[in-house]
């Protein structure tokens, strides 16, 4: 116990915080990638790509850190979940690598077919990554077929593409596209900026629709996720805040307050993670076979001793990370200017 909260819960917050950070950071660069083919001119594509140029690598490190934190704090969850969703995770890795290859390769030859090929690879992999992340979250929320001894007993890949996971996948994709458009607004000017404003509006409509459908679907079909909301109706304020924040984004963008707009789409991402955390806690992975096989944070957690050590590491490390993340973003603040180091 620390400040009246037990260590597994603390670590649940840490992991949640790290994955929220990851979603906010890699979210905008996946989103920017998802829009990539909407830009027609070579120069615009380069500007859009270079908008994420200095930061996408660093953003992916948050995935490594988040994964490490999950491994460290909840090894049982990490092991069970990753081995159960074997194929989705392998596809995720494939796309992570393809996307990195595309970003690096694209600018190295001037031929049209060359750039077209990598443009498509970059954009499609960005879309799939956002979508797969959503599918993964959908399956965590809905639960998977965990049997005794944490062994997955389902049929694998196609089971994970269930309607609910497809919905959360689509919601995540549209969320990241809204977020990515906001980021690109920060980084562009002129006609590209104007075009992005239009795209942003379409993205917001798509997101609101899919978020609303997902919410309804959850309320109707997935009972175990709604318990916390039904018992504490005051928590309904979180989804309401999501709608309000989303609605605020086009207003801010049309007033050219793109920094605030970006903060709001970051907030929406964080709020959605809060909803996920509220729905799950204290479970990490629900068994759809029998509740007795579900993995809670207490089943999955490392020893208190270990969690204590890691919390110390996190307390020392996090301010450092935030410090130099801030420094990097400050260094590269403002509109993109292409130079000899650009992609």
């Amino acid at each position: 116990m620390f400040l009246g909260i037990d260590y597994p819960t603390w670590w649940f917050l840490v992991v949640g915080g790290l994955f929220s950070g990851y979603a906010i950071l890699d979210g905008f660069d996946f989103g920017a990638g998802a829009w990539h083919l909407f830009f027609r001119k070579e120069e615009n594509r380069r500007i859009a790509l270079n908008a994420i140029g200095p930061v996408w690598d660093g953003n992916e490190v948050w995935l490594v850190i988040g994964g490490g934190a999950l491994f460290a704090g909840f090894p049982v969850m990490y092991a069970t979940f990753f081995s159960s969703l074997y194929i989705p995770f392998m596809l995720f890795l494939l796309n992570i690598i393809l996307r990195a290859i595309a970003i690096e390769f694209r600018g190295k030859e001037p031929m049209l077919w060359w750039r077209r090929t990598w443009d498509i690879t970059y954009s499609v992999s960005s879309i799939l990554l956002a979508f797969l992340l959503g599918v993964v979250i959908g399956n965590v929320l809905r639960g998977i077929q965990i049997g005794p001894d944490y062994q997955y007993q389902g049929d694998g890949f196609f089971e994970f593409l269930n309607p609910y996971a497809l919905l959360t996948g689509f919601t995540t994709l549209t969320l990241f596209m809204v977020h990515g458009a906001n980021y690109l607004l920060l980084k562009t000017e002129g006609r590209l900026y104007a075009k992005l404003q239009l795209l942003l509006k379409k993205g917001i409509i798509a997101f609101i629709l899919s978020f609303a459908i997902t919410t309804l679907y959850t309320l109707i079909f997935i009972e175990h996720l709604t318990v916390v909301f039904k018992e504490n109706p005051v928590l309904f304020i979180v989804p309401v805040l999501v709608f309000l924040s989303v609605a605020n984004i086009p207003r801010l963008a049309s007033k050219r307050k793109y920094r605030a707009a970006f903060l709001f789409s970051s907030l929406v991402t964080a709020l959605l993670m809060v909803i996920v955390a509220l729905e799950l806690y204290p479970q990490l992975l629900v068994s759809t076979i029998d509740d007795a096989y579900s993995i809670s944070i207490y089943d999955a957690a490392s020893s208190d001793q270990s969690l204590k050590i890691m919390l110390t590491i996190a307390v020392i490390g996090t301010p450092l990370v935030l410090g130099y993340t801030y420094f990097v973003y400050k260094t590269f603040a403002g509109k993109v200017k292409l130079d000899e180091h650009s992609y």
Partner: protein
Amino acid sequence: METEILARIQFAFTVAFHYIYPPLSIGIGLILVFFEGLYLKTKREKYHVLARFWTKIFALTFGIGVVTGIVMEFEFGTNWAVYSRYVGDVFGSALAAEGIFAFALESGFLGVLLFGWNRVKPWVHFVATIGVFLGSMFSAVWIVVANSWQQTPSGFHIVGEGLNARAEITDFWAMVFNPSSVERLLHVWLGAFLAGAFLVLSVHAYYLIKGRHIEVSKTAIKVALIIATVFSLGQLMTGHASAEGVSHNQPAKLAALEGHYPANEKADMYIFGWVNNETQEVTGLKVPGGLSFLLHQDFETPVIGLNSFSPEDRPKQVNAIFQFYHIMIAIGMFLIGFTVYASIQLYRKKLFDQKWLLFIMMWSVLLPQIANQVGWFAAEMGRQPWVVYGLLRTSDAFSQSVSENQILFSLILFFVIYALLFFLFIYLLNKKIQAGPHDDTKIQRNPNQEAYTQTLTQ
């Protein structure tokens, strides 16, 4: 059984591929710190040119290191679920520390290192370079600590039984400073410095042979050769310390490294040889009692052999382990001989006139890479049949719920994509090398504007 073999092949393949890149990043990082430090100190443009050039190559190795590294982390969970549950409590804190202290530092400052030349003051850029270098050094710390814990577990106790058994940490610092971590870390660091230094030597030797970028190349070779010489010699010491450690901590591994079977007799040391695991005979050139001498300074002292362990508790691939280990030693000896000789020639101002030396220098880039790879193969195969030495068998550690076909699918996937990635690496490396350092033209006052206008007119 099949699943286990496939899972092992996949892990070995992906980690071996990954390990081409982090050592290069660490090694080039060190060189960058020298180049940029020398630039700030002397204000001579050639160091600036070199730092900028090698930053581009650093970016390449770093980028591939990150994406292939994500694969490694995921694979613990996807393919080695039992292992992950078993070691998570211990291994996890090392990994968490790696993420927070090392990766974040590295990647945070990487943007400034790569794209910040015209945006921040020179000393701020230097700080970023040091940050990236230190980050890469720290990440080696934590991953080697985790691996060393698998070799020589300490600071833990076992809780639970069967599939639910797991190691829980009792003493963080005993885990960090487990009996083998310090010497193995030094060995890994130095191996990485050599990988980087030899890449620099190779590229600039190539330029000299082609008669390009002559002035900066001579400077670069001087700096890199000093680093390579010092650390080749240093590697002798860390290597010896590692071997001595293995003799205390993992006698079965040591016996496999030298193909020493008799339970308790004096042990020979082979220069090269071939091990027949059936007849337990080694044919080759040996120093009788050499291993005994190396460990105990006496040619007759007995050393524990493979036959002291029951067959299921000792590695089976003795010949492979023996060969990997001896290739590493042979390369190490060659690197010492070569760097010392080249340094003497440099001191006598004759290095750059001898094309054959430059030719060897150009090709020797492969040697530290090979040594790093085979060294790890010897270390990991020598630990078998254990994944955590003496505690958890590899055959118990893989994911039970993943099928053969799934692994076969991912294995083929990795073969294909890594082939593409390797091709990309060679292609881009070659392109950057052919473009070369910008030493003939003065660095433009405002490259931003110029490149920007260029793209508009293209």
